[in-house]
Each structure stands twice: as structure tokens, then as C-alpha cells.
């Protein structure tokens, strides 16, 4: 269970009072009539599925019924911050301290283990049998 701080109610509430509403900060193309299909399709259908820091929109459906955003680590399930609609996150995946401490690197070279070191050559190589 998450214990979520609602930025409007100004207190922590149980997860059952909330609903997740998907990725936050989706921007509608400024000129829909003149954007290409790929841009419009990305806006409508394609969502990020990052391993690590993710900005999500949630709604406090049982409480104040307001939408707000959560910065959450999808690996550790840690909620790093919550902030009202219209504001920008203070913690992003580019934040070097977060990147190092939370282990949020995307998987590459066969590296899948949480907490593994990407710079460790031994871990990245397949074991020879």
C-alpha cells in the first residue's frame, strides 16, 4: 500500500482513497490539424514505461477529488514527491543523485538486476558455460 501525501488536503492518506490516472505532463500538440500522424499517435496512445523515476497523475477520488502529480520510483515503489497540477517536478530522472542512489538506469547489455552496477564488466557479460 502507498501512503500518499495529497497536496490539496495537506496530509497523508491511504492508497485506497486514490486512483492512478497514468503518465503526467502529457502535452496536447499545439496545432492538432497540422501535426503529423506520428506526433498525434504518440500523444494519444504511447506512454513511457520507465524503470525508475516516473511522473504520474493521480486523483484523490474519495477525498478532495483533485488531480495531482506524483514522482515515483517504479523499482523501489518509493514516492519521492507529490505536487499540484500545473507545477513541474523538482526530482527528475536526470537528477544525478537519484540516478545513482535509486538504481534507475534503464536496462541494457543484459543488465536486469536491481542494484547491480552497470559499470561492472563482469555482471554485464554472459556467463560462459
Amino acid at each position: 500500500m502507498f501512503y500518499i501525501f495529497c497536496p490539496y488536503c495537506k496530509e497523508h492518506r491511504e492508497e485506497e482513497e486514490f486512483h492512478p490516472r497514468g503518465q503526467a505532463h502529457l502535452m496536447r500538440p499545439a496545432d492538432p490539424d497540422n501535426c503529423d500522424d506520428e506526433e498525434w499517435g504518440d500523444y494519444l496512445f504511447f506512454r513511457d514505461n520507465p524503470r525508475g523515476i516516473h511522473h504520474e497523475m493521480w486523483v484523490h477520488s474519495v477525498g478532495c477529488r483533485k488531480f495531482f502529480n506524483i514522482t515515483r520510483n517504479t523499482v523501489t515503489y518509493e514516492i519521492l514527491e507529490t505536487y499540484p497540477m500545473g507545477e513541474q517536478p523538482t526530482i527528475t530522472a536526470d537528477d544525478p543523485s537519484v540516478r545513482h542512489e535509486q538504481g534507475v538506469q534503464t536496462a541494457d547489455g543484459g543488465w536486469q538486476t536491481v542494484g547491480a552496477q552497470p559499470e561492472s564488466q563482469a555482471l554485464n557479460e554472459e556467463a560462459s558455460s
Partner: protein
Amino acid sequence: MSDVKEFETRPADTSRAESPLTWSLHEQKSLPHASNPGIILSEKPFLGHLVVRGGAIVLDEAVREVMDMALPAKPHALVSDDSGERTIQWLSPDEWLIIVPGGEEFALEQKLRQSLGQSHFSIVNVSGGQTVLSLKGKWAREVLMKSISYDVHPQAFPVGKGVSTVFAKATVILRRAEEDGWELVIRRSFADYCYRWLLDASSEYGVSVTR
């Protein structure tokens, strides 16, 4: 003057109104009556409920003028007038619940509309959609602890607080207007469910239901 059409939802004729709990109480052959009740449950039917939405500043001015009360600005604040019969509760940053004695709500709505004029606001009379349950007695807090995930310890839930939260599998607005009395504002369609849940949860402490 606002140009919104208003209508009296409870006309002064002989038509009978039934409170949301009428059916539940009628179904029971006799109301529960413990000799030494730890829980005293009763409905406060036919109160006037208004949901008011809009900017806090304009609404505060109107409410001060019409009701002589200040609009609670802090989250989860609940204020009542001297008699304790009229209350205003914070529901969200732009939404408040006003509960007044039954029959006053239409006049109050008209006065508020008059005072608010053309500003950006909404007033909805939800009197028919919800009812108030009063939960009293020595074990009232224990019953709430079984039913609600929200912290009802006096430290976290002082008198003058009200929250909307999950109650069993329904939603309630839980209010604490006095030291030993809790109020649950429940939806009409969930009234029977909440009533049965409360009876079941409080049976171990001995429960009396009063009309």
C-alpha cells in the same frame, strides 16, 4: 442577481418525505435496544445540505453576510454556529458542505445567490441525496477504528475536523462536531449498507438505535 433557475425541492404541501433510512428502520421489527449501550446510533433526517463551490474569497464574503459565519479556509476544518445547528465544512480547496436545519436550505440558497451575484460559483442542493448518522457512546471511536482506515485518535482527529474518507466499502464524510459525538454524512443509496455495517460493528459493545 444570478440568472440561474432555482426550485424548491421540498414543496410545502402534504406529500410525504421519507428519509434514506426509513426502509432500513421499518424492516426491523423492533429497533435494537441494549440495556447498557456502548453505542447510540440515530439518524438526523431531513437536514438541508448545500454543496457550495467557487473561489474562497467571494464565498467567504457571501457566507459572512448571509450566515454570519466564516468560511473555513484550512483543509478539513468544520465550523458551526453558536447553536451548533448550522455547520460549514471544508471538502476541497474550492468546495464546502453547508448543513442547516431542514427547511432553511432553499431560503439560504436564494440569499447566497443574491449575495454572490454574477461571480463564478455553484450551489447544489443535495439534501435529498444524503443523510446524517449520529454515532455516540463510549465505544464510538472503537467502531470507527474497525470501519475506517483514517486515524480517529483524538490527537489526529480533534473536535472541529471533518474528512471524507472510505468507510467499509462506501464513502462517508466523517465529522466530529463535539467531544463525544461523531457524525457520518452518508449517501442515500449507501444508507442501508452503512446502517447494517454499523449495527454489526457495534453489536459487541451493545447498541441502541433511537429515532
